[in-house]
């Protein structure tokens, strides 16, 4: 089991976060506080990476934690780890924001929103410098490094830019089928590298 599995798989840490969700369902605010301490940094970093806007990233993180707080009773470990649930919520909200920003820009004929590129080497080098997640981040970066560049760029565009399948294909100047195949092969390889098989 890789280091990444320590935050995403069935581990002590993920069990502890599941226990915090149970306590939050009983309206224990200290549990919310502890879950925030554990997850706020990677979630905020993700939201900031996608939106490139600190105020929006803060809104998204607050919104996600409030949803976890309000829906804590609905959580079951069978749905996956708390971290993956929270990260998925964060990514969805961040992408909704930048898509809404684009639509608004189209309507008022202002300039469109900027699409951010993939994770650069310099950015990756600064990733997860504290909070005890260096090892996990290192493992993810190593797994990403094992992907073919074209697989990596397709997956990064999908995750961080909010582009649709068709937009990714247009951006990379490849047929849609090719993009789908790259994403499939790349994500499966990442999963295997991170020992996250079902």
């Amino acid at each position, binding site marked *: 089991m890789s280091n990444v599995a320590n935050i995403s798989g069935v581990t002590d840490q993920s069990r502890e976060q599941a226990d915090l969700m149970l306590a939050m369902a009983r309206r224990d605010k200290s549990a*919310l506080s502890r879950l925030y301490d554990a997850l706020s940094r990677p979630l905020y970093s993700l939201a900031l990476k996608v939106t490139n806007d600190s105020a929006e990233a803060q809104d998204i993180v607050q919104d996600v934690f409030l949803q976890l707080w309000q829906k804590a009773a609905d959580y079951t470990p069978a749905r996956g780890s708390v971290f993956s649930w929270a990260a998925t919520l964060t990514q969805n909200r961040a992408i909704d924001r930048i898509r809404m920003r684009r639509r608004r820009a189209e309507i008022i004929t202002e300039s469109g929103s900027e699409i951010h590129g993939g994770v650069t080497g310099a950015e990756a080098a600064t990733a997860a410098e504290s909070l005890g997640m260096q090892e996990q981040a290192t493992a993810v970066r190593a797994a990403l490094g094992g992907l073919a560049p074209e697989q990596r760029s397709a997956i990064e565009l999908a995750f961080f830019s909010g582009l649709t399948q068709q937009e990714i294909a247009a951006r990379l100047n490849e047929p849609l089928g090719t993009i789908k195949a790259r994403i499939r092969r790349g994500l499966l390889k990442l999963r295997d590298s991170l020992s996250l098989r079902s």
Partner: protein
Amino acid sequence: MITEQHEELASLHALGLLEGAERVSFERALAGHAELAALVNSLVETSAAFALVAPQVEPPAALKARLLAAASATVQSESAGSNVVSFPLFRWLPLAAAAAFALTALWLGSKNFALQQENLSLRTEKELADIAYQTAQGQLKERSFVAESMINDLGRQLREQSDLTHLKVTALASLAGNTQEARAIAVWDPVRETGLLTVEKLPAIADNQDYQIWVVDPAYPIPVDGGVFKPDAAGKAVLTFKGDKPIKTVAAFAISLEKKGGVPKAEGPIVLLGK
């Protein structure tokens, strides 16, 4: 058995790339396919790990305090019950009845219309005005015989009280991912230049935030401020509103999420919009 196509769809789903009918169809297939669901779960876990390769930035310390305050407010609202904004009932009875009539139609229509609403989500990337128009029109088409008779009966009662033909009744549609269940009806009286807004299922917001309603009048270059409000724990609110400028023609209503007390010009995300 997992096929290559399953793997492809599961990968796209894990990255949020499935949209519209393709997404609905895949989620339906997931419900009865344990092996496929397990594959999706493993790929969602994989994609979630991407959060760790974004450049790590510490959130501002104030954010935690804001979050805990908002959570406390939620608990207090749950125990305190409804916190609906008060308004003069008798004076606004016709407007309130009209809003209730429209909400009833929406609720009954939505029973059979949930799937189409799913397809009308933000990910369809259609223009804002089209979403609002299609949602309202679709819901009206789907209303049941019972709803129609209720509407006719209510309408007859309303006509006996006053002539409502001059009122503009608008259903506002969701524009943000976390407000897809939200319902809002704005009723505008052009004679009094006053409106009544009724909302349900709006997401909770922090203490330092307010929802703000805007009236789009073509006479002005930017939407006219109609005031701020905060829904109760169930996401409900009812309020009367006026523009901060004289309003001659109402082209649309919009609701945005702003800092507490509101802003003179919309800055935050528009969460609901209707023509």
